[in-house]
């Protein structure tokens, strides 16, 4: 086991009734790693991501975050989730709160950060993504790309150790995909640990330092972008790539 392992997943299983979506996933995710998960639809990649922060209850196996077993009932999952933010396909901003409030609600209520400090930090984040003038707007007044950038800022405001991206650009109009990917690249360059389920092959090849290919609930291939894209061994991966590229 490597020294800087942040998340250790061991034999993770998830089934919905008779449908076995995850059939035993074992892998490590290191600090600073940018992991992209690929796979045909229905392969379980989103379920895997949602199991990591226990939005779905795994049916079996273990997930260790910094050595803490998340599945152990004694673990305070709410506390552990604060280290592991998630960015959703449909943004899931809070429509009844302003952009600034969307960013500050968690730090102030969960970490006890004073409102003024939270506001300052939130404004700094918004400035980074170029949305500081939208601070007092409401989510419904923003475009999809703007919303997703705010959602990323909301995650960052909690100063997490890792961010899970669940198809962050799939719900966006094509011309807005770039602005979101730019923010993600920037994060990757700053050394944020990221686990991304995405169909953006360009992003995967350029930014990821590791790619996992899921097929029928198991890891079919695991390697660097060069290995996966240029020298795929798995037949299903080859078929998948030929359709996408």
């Amino acid at each position, binding site marked *: 086991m490597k020294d800087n392992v942040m998340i250790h997943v061991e034999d993770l299983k998830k089934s919905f009734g008779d449908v076995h979506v995850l059939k035993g996933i074992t892998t490590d995710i290191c600090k600073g790693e940018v992991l992209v998960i690929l796979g045909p639809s229905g392969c379980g990649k989103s379920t895997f991501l949602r199991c990591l922060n226990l939005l779905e209850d795994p049916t079996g196996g273990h997930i260790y975050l910094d050595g803490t077993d998340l599945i152990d009932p004694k673990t305070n999952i709410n*506390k552990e989730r604060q280290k592991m933010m998630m960015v*959703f396909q*449909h943004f899931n901003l809070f429509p009844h*709160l302003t952009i600034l409030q969307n960013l500050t609600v968690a730090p102030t209520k969960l970490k006890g950060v004073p409102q003024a400090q939270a506001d300052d930090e939130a404004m700094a984040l918004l400035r980074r993504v170029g949305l500081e003038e939208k601070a007092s707007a409401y989510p419904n007044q923003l475009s999809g790309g703007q919303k997703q950038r705010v959602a990323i800022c909301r995650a960052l405001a909690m100063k997490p150790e890792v961010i899970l991206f669940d198809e962050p650009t799939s719900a966006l109009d094509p011309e807005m995909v770039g602005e979101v990917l730019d923010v993600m690249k920037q994060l990757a360059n700053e050394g944020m640990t990221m686990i991304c389920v995405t169909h953006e092959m360009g992003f995967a090849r350029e930014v990821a330092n590791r790619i996992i290919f899921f097929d029928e609930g198991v890891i079919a291939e695991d390697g660097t972008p060069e290995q996966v894209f240029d020298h795929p061994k798995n037949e299903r991966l080859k078929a998948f790539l030929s359709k996408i590229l």
Partner: protein
Amino acid sequence: MRNKKLSRKLIPLMIVFVLIMGLMTGCGSKNNIEASPVYGVDDLANKTIGVQLGTTGDIYASDIEGADVQKFNKGADAVQALKQGKVDAVIIDEQPAKAFVSRNEGKLAILDEAFVTEEYAICFAKENIALQDQVNKALAELKEEGTLDQIIGNYIGDDTKGKQPYESPEDIKYDGKLIMATNAEFEPYEFLHEGEIVGIDAEMARAIADKLGKELEIQNIQFDSIITAVQSGKADMGIAGMTVTEDRLKNINFSDPYTTAKQVIVVRPGEVGASPVKTADDLNGKKIGVQLGTTGDIYASDIEDAKVEKYNKGADAVQALKQGKVDAVIIDGQPAKAFVDRNRDLSILDDPFVTEEYAICIAKGNLDLLDDVNKALAELKEEGVLDQIVGNYIGDDTKGKQPYESPEDIKYDGKLIMATNAEFEPYEYLSKGEIVGIDAEMAKAIADKLGKELEIQNIQFDSIITAVQSGKADMGVAGMTVTEDRLKNINFTDPYTTASQVIIVRNGKSATAFDLKESIYNNFQKDSRWKYITNGLFVTIQITSCAVILGIVLGFLIAIARSSCDMTGKAKLLNWILKAYLTLIRGTPAMIQLLIIYYVIFASSNINKILVAVLAFGLNSSAYIAEIVRAGIMSIDSGQFEAGRSLGFTYAQTMRHFIMPQAFKNVLPALGNEFIVLLKETSIAGYIGIMDLTRGGDTIRSLTYEAFFPLMTVALIYLVMVMGLTALVGKMERSLKNDER
């Protein structure tokens, strides 16, 4: 924005306008076809009376004190004026009156009382004594031969009408003419029929002319010109249903009278005719109104084929009788007198329906109190106090003169609670907001004897026995008759008075004329009756606002618990219990719930009634609010929940900070609607004797026997409150809509 604001102001204005229009048409239509204020000859004073110019009706009307006599050229014009409400009554000859009335069925009526009886005769010029003698001779012959009776019978008699016309002798030869002046607008004496002047007078004149061997010529002129025509010789004689009067005799001579006639009064009757019930035997197969749970109800149920309509109040039954919805009302004699006194269109049938005895009811288990009350009653009878109290309310000479006074030095030890239904004058009724009457005073005297302070609870009549059984009241005193069925559930004291059940019917007279000013005075100003409305309004607001708060708190708790159970799949038992609660509350009427809470759940405890209402309506509302809020929670995208949880918020925090605020905004219109329903639903609070707004209006209604103002006022107040509530909810909605700007 501007338009919106305008329409917001306009809508309430329009509603008020429509209501006022309704009010005006309500009164207006009454004014238009209102019954005549004349019911007998005595009522004619100071009224507007229509007559035909120059008739005896004209002469008689002029003698009536203060009467405004409108003189018309024709009897028909006078009758037309009566129909249009321009005059209050028309004085006219009986036979023409009958013809008019038969052509205006339901719109006109002849008063039973005849105004005056008079005789018709034929008039001649003063100097024409010869003709007068000849005609008198001919008349005598016609009378003797029966020809005159035959002619009259041809126009008036029921069997003979149109069957025995006068025929001139076949072989007659005329020598000259006999000219008769008449005014052919006086059926059946003279009138136009297919262009011919026919009628009793015309035929009689022809018979006379035949006797004289002359050919009859009829001149049809104005009635007031007939005498002139005869005087000037233009006509030989005047025959026009003309009565002999002194003034006329100065100018003209009259023959012997040929018939007697009556002057009658024609009026507009009320809209509703007399009841088809004239005696107790007529009740079979009729619609009978009774008060629910009274002995009248019991008796009526025994009447063959009768359709018994049960009303909550005696006053409602009487109102229904007035409006023709029932044919008769069976009710206790004394309250019946009170009703009939105030409604001249109602009468009590002479033969009492049944005689019965009133007694006080006391719970089966409470034999000590029964003994005490019986003892006190016996003493009160012996001392004459009971007679004094009864006399204070019923006797003609003693009414209001000998009220019962408690002994001055009395010290009370505890309370004696009496249940009654204060809509039963003179036994118990509201006067200036106080419950008074024979029963109330007697109960006070009994309580004084027992050394207890009397407390009177005013509830529905059919709830009194339940209240006594459940211990909410110590005794029931409400003009209650001892019956076998009642004895099964409750004990009765010795009777304290006898009473009779009587039958009230419509007598066919018109209702008292509607007077807007007086009606407003009676319904609101008199005895500060408006206070029933304002006090009731306060109670309604009190109950509604407390119930809303209880409903919201409970409803939100249930909704959160239920949606949590649904979402997490945990606490299945709790979810099941809550589901059962919702099914129970939403599956039964609010009124039944109110009665169950009061009479079953809090049966033995003397709980504040308003608290009971708050509890009942709050619980009822909570079930609806719970489902509304749950629907609101479920309408929030699950992504919102996941976003909250993924940020590290607990389930409760996620609900509180993210789900509920959005859900609340979504369900606000539905919640507002629920509050409106709740506000109006409190109108059933009267069923457990709470004097809320509706009951306040009803109380006035039972005092004035008028439905229009009390009901309209109450409706208007509810409407205004609902409009206020709607505006408030609308304002909240707009302020919560910020994220959609």
